[in-house]
């Protein structure tokens, strides 16, 4: 097990280094005005002086090594156009907490609603009218089929009317958090419910469930420690990714409620051609995906004893 985990972590680290190199090398191909706020008014000489000062005239490998050194110290560099001379870490530190807070709340909500809904749906497939299953399927199909922009708008429009709160987000008024959280979690609720139901129905038709029933295990316990336990395995891999991605904020929902989060930041800095900011944000997004996959794999290995054996050892 430990060996498997170490191997996975090593793979992830290598992937991350390669990604950093590629992003760095690509951004060096961008026009150099992206490093200056007032490029048009600068003389050729002063541009060269600044470039030398920033180390941008060094050979590429030297620059990359330098950048890795910076990263190890937790320094992402400074912004040049978005907020000139301001450390990028500080810019992110101001915006991230709100996205993280909303992301975590909405994730908790989607797990707390999505998983029970999936269980109810799966269990109701064995009943006569399958009411929960039908209700849940309608909900899932609507959420999956209707473009999210449409229901986000509807939620904002009618939700604010029903709750009697402002359409816009206000950090100090918790009531205004309700609608964005709802908007952020509704997709995940449908996702978790759909897959959990599907895996649970799959599992409950398996032979070992029949054997457990033949053993005389009560239905509730079969559902919990046999069906659910096995059905959650494939979902576990997805959960870390979705945690990390909700932390990155949602562009659409954040702009809809004008939440000062991470959501639109990347697009904003791309428009501004702020090279160092783009570089830093792309790196963060890449790191988040790599970490999400890594944690997904590690959690799978924790919940499924077969995983760490899938190497050369195999089953006897």
């Amino acid at each position: 097990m430990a060996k498997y985990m170490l191997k996975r972590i090593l793979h992830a680290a290598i992937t991350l280094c390669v990604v950093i190199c590629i992003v760095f090398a690509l951004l060096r191909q961008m026009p150099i005005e992206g490093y200056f706020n007032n490029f048009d008014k600068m003389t050729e000489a002063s541009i060269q002086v600044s470039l030398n000062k920033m180390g941008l005239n060094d050979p590429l490998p030297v620059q990359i090594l330098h950048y890795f050194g910076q990263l190890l110290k937790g320094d992402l560099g400074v912004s040049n156009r978005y907020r000139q001379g301001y450390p990028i870490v500080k810019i992110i530190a101001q915006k991230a907490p709100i996205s993280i807070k909303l992301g975590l709340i909405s994730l908790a909500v989607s797990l707390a609603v999505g998983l029970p809904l999936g269980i109810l749906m799966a269990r109701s497939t064995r009943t006569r009218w399958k009411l929960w299953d039908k209700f849940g399927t309608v909900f899932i199909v609507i959420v999956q089929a209707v473009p999210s922009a449409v229901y986000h708008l509807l939620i904002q429009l009618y939700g604010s009317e029903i709750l009697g709160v402002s359409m816009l987000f206000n950090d100090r008024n918790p009531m205004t958090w309700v609608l964005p959280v709802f908007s952020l979690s509704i997709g995940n609720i449908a996702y978790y419910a759909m897959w959990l139901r599907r895996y649970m129905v799959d599992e409950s038709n398996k032979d070992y469930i029949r054997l457990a029933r033949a053993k005389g295990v009560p239905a509730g316990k079969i559902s919990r420690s046999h069906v659910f336990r096995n059905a959650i395995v494939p979902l576990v891999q997805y959960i870390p990714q979705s945690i990390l991605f909700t932390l990155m904020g949602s562009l659409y929902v954040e702009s809809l409620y004008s939440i000062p989060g991470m959501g639109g930041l990347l697009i904003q800095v791309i428009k501004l051609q702020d090279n160092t900011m783009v570089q830093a944000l792309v790196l963060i997004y890449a790191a988040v995906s790599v970490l999400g996959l890594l944690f997904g794999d590690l959690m799978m290995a924790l919940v499924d004893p077969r995983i760490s054996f899938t190497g050369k050892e195999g089953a006897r």
Partner: protein
Amino acid sequence: MDQQQVLLSVQDLNFKFTLRGQVLHALRGISLDVYKGESLAIVGESGSGKSVFVKCLMGLNDANGCVESGKILYDGKDLAQFKSDAEWRALRGHRIAMVLQDPMTSLNPLKTIGWQIREAVELHQNLHGDAAKKAVYEILAEVGISDPQRRYNQYPHEFSGGMRQRVVIAIAMACKPEILICDEPTTALDVTIQAQILGLIKEMQKKYDLTTIYITHDLGVVANVADRIAVMYAGDIVEVGRCEEVFYDPRHPYTWALLSSLPQLGVKGEPLYSIEGTPPNLFHEVRGDAFAPRNPHALKMDFVKRPPMFTVTATHAARTWLLDPRAPKIDPPEHIRALREKGRQLGLTKGEECANG
């Protein structure tokens, strides 16, 4: 035979499934007695209702099926009347346990072997903590798994197919049942392991005074383990008798056909016998003898009226009009006549001339 104690008695059991508004008549009036301590084998081709029948005994059929009429008498109760899960749970495992066909899929892949056996021990032997663990070690050793302490903490994927089937048997034994149902216990195993597993089940039967019901379509297994045989066709038992009676003196044309298709009876150089046609569609009502359309010896009567069970001996009965005194004399196929002759010589069956002999 008749002084033997009837343990479980099924009387005229009808079982139906509802599938997308259509009704499938899976069991059509089955009657069968199971005697205490015997090994009964239920044979028949796929879809003949063998599995549905034994699942009825444990209430394990899917929710879209229900007992329409008939009785399953066991231990003073009529299982056909059972509705709730709680009623069945008093019986499942505790009185009747089951070994499933495929050991590769019948264990939970995420739980250790020990956990899965222990679950049964805790439910049925009312042991907990270290006592339960000790009981699991004992059972593991009993079914021939060495080094139980280490094996306890291993997962199913660390066991081979034969070893897993031993674990499944261990789970059944942990329940301390009275009846053990083996649903094709060796079909998924290779031949060398088959004999071991059958031997193990026999050993357990002797040790715990079990009554076993085998489901199989492997007549080799039947000959190896069974005291009595019930032949099923299209949701009905067409012939039932002691092992040697059914093998050496079969009376139903379906049993003839089944035995004729045994490769062991084939003549070298000639193609193997196979039964023409397919079993009837049980979504439709079956008229007369269900086997009649595939039966080259079918009588006119077979298409009109369903034959009753005719008694051949006290232990042997078959559901065919051929046994009616009015029926014309029809010679069974050559293979069967040879078998009958052999049985007579071996003194396994009585040499009496019968209505259709």
